[in-house]
């Protein structure tokens, strides 16, 4: 199963803006996409379960995709690392 690992750069962690982007992007793919953070895991398509990961700044998250468009999905989601990071106040 293809997977990638990302570091959360956003100062606020994987919260509103970044989680919303991740969920919206994940929903464009048919594959099942799971996000792992430590012992917790979440569906990438569910903003509520993504928030529940409690992944703060500097956290390492792993994305796993299973399905016909798994590789394309991970490629798109890998952009999270450089996407939409809220600058510090």
């Amino acid at each position, binding site marked *: 199963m293809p997977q990638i690992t990302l570091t959360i750069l956003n100062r606020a962690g994987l919260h*509103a803006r970044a989680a919303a982007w991740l969920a919206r992007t994940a929903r464009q793919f048919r594959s099942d996409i799971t996000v792992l953070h430590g012992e917790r895991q979440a569906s990438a398509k569910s*903003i509520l379960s993504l928030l529940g990961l409690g992944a703060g700044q500097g956290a390492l998250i792993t994305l796993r995709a299973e399905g016909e468009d798994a590789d394309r999905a991970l490629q798109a989601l890998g952009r999270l690392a450089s996407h939409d990071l809220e600058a*510090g106040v």
Partner: protein
Amino acid sequence: MKTLRGVPASAGVAIGPAFPFRRLTPRFERQRCADPAVEWARGEAALATAAARLTALAIRARDQGLAQQAAVLQAQALMLDDPELLDAVRTAIEEHALCAEAALSDAAERYAELLEALDDQYLAARAADVRDVARRVLHVLLGLTDAPGANLTQPAIILADDLASSDIAWLDPAFMLGFCTAGGSAASHTAILARELGLPAVAGAGAEILRIPADTPLILDGGEGLLLLDPAPATFAAYEAAGLAAQSRSAEAQAHAHEPAVTRDGWRAAVLANLSSVAGLQAALAAGAEGIGLLRTEFLYFERATAPTEDEQYLAYRAIFDAFGDRSVVLRTLDAGGDKTLPYLRLPPEPNPFLGLRGLRLCLRRPELFRPQLRAALRAGAGRRLKIMFPMVTAVAEVRAARAELENCRRALVAEGLPAAERLEVGIMVEAPAAALIADHLAAEVDFFSIGTNDLTQYTLAADRTNAEVADLASAYHPAVLRLVQGVIVAAHRQGKLVAMCGELAGDPTALPLLLGLGVDELSMAPAVIPLAKQVIRTLDRSALRSLAQGALALSEPDAVRVLVRAAAP
């Protein structure tokens, strides 16, 4: 008339009636449904309706330029379309024959509690967002029309225990004059929102504000942190007059923004801008900045997965230098560490980052990070006078090491046949008390100082100004800070070196008489305050301000200094 005191959260004055904001928790009866299939269809339709309303609010917020609020509303709309939430609601309806209202409240409450349990202030705010979206769906399910903001039909001052983006979205922006919250601090979400909206706000005014009846005449003074109830006619008149005067002063200042700031006794002040992005260039130029006194280069390093390359930095610096032509631009080298971490540096977490590997300390330890920046700066500065400044210096050896790196980079560029700045001025930030106390030794090593009052204040007073518990201790008017500033200026001037100031204090119109009296040579501030600062300087007589500074230095309390300085302000 009655005066309530809180924390200044967003500057400005609002005059208007009270609007107590209350979150409605729609009441419903927990019951079983007759037909789960029909009930789920009803629930699904209500979720979709509420999501559509939130999306419309998000678009409105975005169109009004309220990025933060738009992001929260968009996230809330996504919550209503969340596959896991929908599953939980459907299961409760289909398997337990619960009514849609109960199924939804239960599911939302479980997520809210889960987020709260994570013990993270950002996620606690998201828990409030989840509860808020559940209320929105209940409104639809119950066919309610009395939304929390429905009675806000005239411009008013909003009173609440605390206000989240999702709360404010219930209100019509055209009728919001300002916010006053019972809890919170200057760093709280309401404060950030108010500043984004450009509205005055007072936080932490106490639970008493929740008992103020609707339509009570109020004056909200965001700059002072005051809420005045039933103000006397004379107070009303004074605030109204002050508001008009401030308006005309600001218009007058803008009209003269591009003229030099010369004191009545003929001293020309250098008024420069702090810049933290290429995008801010236009604002700085439009505000009449005579140069950049502090170019925070961190913007090139944040929000990315790897450090910027030398060429990338060269192009950015070049664009900024070109925009300012022959005017001065002071480039500060990377000031990471402290509260500004860069994940790709893979630095181990520090127990006390503000006393850790930050600023120049980090750069000297990481030549692979430092050299590309120095080379980019030298290349971009070719053919002009390059001013470079090192942050977080506490020892002479650090300045020597940094200068040696700079010289090595310059030689390497020349050897490679690349153009490099030849006319070079090197300075340091004075932001640690240690640097201020050995300013005489440091002055011998550099061409200029720039005093960073924010950090100098918090390091001197051992108080974090973003911590509401100790924020009142972190005053730049504390005699300890002023004595350090004076010492730096005297030591530098003795050796003919220039002293700039680039902290928040430098842009504070009330502080300007004191700063000029102390002998600050150059002021660098947020672009927005430049026109007014120039206008204030034009009214001052610099030679007469030395005695004001001497008087301030002799005082024992920050409040006494504040009173003295206020009295001297034009």
